[in-house]
């Protein structure tokens, strides 16, 4: 009951006209970036980081949360109408959704995606509200050694489990970790990897890295592939569903939610796996199996719900442990740090107003998405006609402005270009971006915890293994790394479907 009261308090805070306006701006902006392939919520939040210097923390997190949920919603619109997933978690939606649209059922596909997202997002957010305080309470007890192990686990999971090429994943991770190392050593104050450049002594600002990798890298990539044959868009009216569609959708929504949430909450990263599992599950359970591959509504409802539930689940490790598992969460964490908020188990007790208002605004944002966006679907489809040179000119403008605004130094703009080049290179060589950005953010956190653990044991390596939880996690880690190749050999088929891998490189 306590949780419910806190959530209602948060709701009261979030329902002020000003906060409501930020939620609305957030979801609209999020949908905007979600609809356009290549521009995701992570990039949008990174670009907006400097704008929030003038905002209260609560308001900017309401804005960011809106962008995050809006981005998920927008991605499904593009998948269905264009067969071009706006972001990697929408790949599965595209399979059935686009077939439905081609059969003239675009309106129903959009409706089941939107309402499914709403259902999953709402249930997911409520689960976050009830689970996070509980997890945070346990997490306070966790020692530095176990923290280090948990972070290691999440980095390895994101890098090794997702994507076809472990090598590419680890290359991305190590690039990220290296960027995170730049600056003064925590305890000795020695300069690391600064190359004698004084401005690098404070480390590289995460805003510059995120904006460079996401925005500049993507802009360069688009510039290199600018002229393309336009894709046929499927015209769509106002989304609606018949009674039969409702009957066929509600179970996949709930099943998708049940699959998606745990995957989002575990530090396994991303919504790709649960959306894929949900698709497979719906195909297996469906009484109209022959419809799959030809536009089955269950194949849109399930994955789309799984997608949003896992998007909500991401807030559990972020709020309870200060551990980001997706690119957007990583940028959100960076935003918390610019406000001087310490993410971690104490966040719930230090900043209760922020956390509960954020959770309440997630619920509100979700509802706004449904109310505002469902009738606007035809308008969102029009966004795809924006010529890319104009669009990316705007993105580059905001990117440079943002990088300069961090410290008002021209050096950061030069640094931005360097990271832009890195961003272009990782796209060119198919290196996934998620491990890279998580490496930049989690790397320094991990180092702090490792130093803490080693200081306690006077530098003895056993300090990293002196907690049962840490040992359990290392065992789990070993199993995760060893099991897939073994299973693959036995089954003779890769665990992660091909479609997901192809998307991985474009994120």
């Amino acid at each position, binding site marked *: 009951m306590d949780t419910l009261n806190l959530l209602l308090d948060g709701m009261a805070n979030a329902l002020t006209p000003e906060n409501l306006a930020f939620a609305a701006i957030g979801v609209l902006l999020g949908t905007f970036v979600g609809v356009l*392939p290549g521009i995701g919520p992570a990039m949008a939040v990174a670009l907006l980081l400097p704008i929030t210097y003038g905002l209260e923390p609560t308001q900017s997190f309401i804005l960011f949360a809106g962008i995050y949920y809006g981005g998920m919603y927008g991605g499904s619109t593009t998948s269905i109408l264009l067969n*071009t997933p706006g972001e990697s978690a929408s790949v599965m939606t595209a399979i059935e959704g686009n077939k439905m649209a081609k059969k003239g059922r675009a309106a129903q596909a959009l409706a089941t995606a939107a309402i499914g997202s709403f259902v999953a997002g709402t249930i997911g957010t409520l689960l976050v509200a009830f689970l996070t305080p509980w997890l945070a309470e346990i997490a306070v007890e966790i020692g530095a050694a176990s923290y280090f192990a948990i972070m290691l686990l999440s980095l390895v999971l994101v890098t090794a489990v997702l994507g076809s090429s472990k090598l590419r994943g680890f290359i991305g991770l190590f690039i990220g970790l290296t960027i995170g190392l730049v600056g003064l050593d925590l305890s000795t104050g020695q300069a690391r990897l600064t190359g004698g450049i004084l401005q690098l002594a404070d480390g590289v600002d995460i805003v510059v890295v995120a904006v460079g990798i996401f925005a500049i890298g993507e802009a360069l990539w688009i510039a290199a592939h600018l002229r*393309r*044959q*336009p*894709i*046929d868009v499927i015209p769509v009216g106002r989304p609606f569903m018949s009674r039969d569609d409702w009957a066929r959708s509600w179970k996949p929504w709930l099943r998708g939610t049940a699959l998606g949430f745990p995957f989002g909450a575990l530090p396994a990263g991303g919504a790709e796996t649960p959306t894929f599992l949900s698709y497979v599950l719906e195909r297996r359970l469906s009484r109209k199996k022959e419809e799959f591959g030809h536009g089955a509504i269950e194949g849109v409802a399930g994955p789309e719900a799984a997608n949003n539930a896992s998007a909500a689940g991401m807030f559990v490790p972020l709020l309870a442990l200060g551990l980001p598992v997706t690119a957007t969460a990583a940028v959100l964490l960076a935003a918390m740090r610019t406000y001087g908020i310490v993410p971690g188990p104490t966040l719930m007790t230090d900043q209760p107003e922020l956390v509960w208002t954020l959770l309440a605004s997630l619920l509100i944002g979700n509802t706004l998405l449904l109310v505002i966006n469902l009738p606007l679907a035809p308008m969102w489809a029009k966004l795809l006609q924006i010529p*890319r040179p104009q669009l990316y000119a705007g993105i580059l403008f905001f990117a440079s402005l943002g990088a300069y605004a961090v410290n008002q130094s021209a050096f950061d703009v030069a640094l931005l270009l360097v990271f832009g080049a890195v961003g272009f290179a990782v796209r060119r060589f198919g290196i996934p971006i998620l491990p890279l950005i998580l490496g930049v953010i989690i790397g320094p956190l991990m180092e702090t915890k490792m130093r803490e653990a080693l200081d306690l044991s006077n530098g003895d390596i056993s300090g990293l293994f002196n907690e049962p939880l840490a040992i359990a996690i290392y065992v789990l880690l070993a199993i995760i790394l060893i099991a897939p190749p073994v299973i693959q050999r036995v089954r003779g088929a890769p665990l992660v479907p091909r479609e997901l891998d192809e998307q991985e490189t474009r994120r």
Partner: protein
Amino acid sequence: MSVVVGYIPNEYGEAALTEALAEAVRRGTGVVVVNTTKGDSLVDKKYLGDEARSGLEQRLSAAPVDVELRQSVGADPADEILNVAREVGADALVIGIRHRSQVGKMLMGSVAMRLLMEAPCPVVAVKP
């Protein structure tokens, strides 16, 4: 020798196409239909997709004159139409034109304007 027409799938393009067919009959030549896009946006409604293209081809096969349909991606539409007109040694160029507001004239470069000024042959401008 033929009549070149700039075509986009809307009323302006249709008006131009109808006029181009009539012009070709009058001159006793064929028609080259040009449909082109800069290809810099994800979706361009002025560019024919596969389905729309085969629909148009079917319609044009009933025309009393020889019709050739050319599509291109990447070049500026005005440049592309002018190139085709020079290449086939066009007798005439047919385009659809529309009214633009004062603001529109300032903001948007006009393909029709460039064609009228730079075409190597007489230009027939049609309104729907």
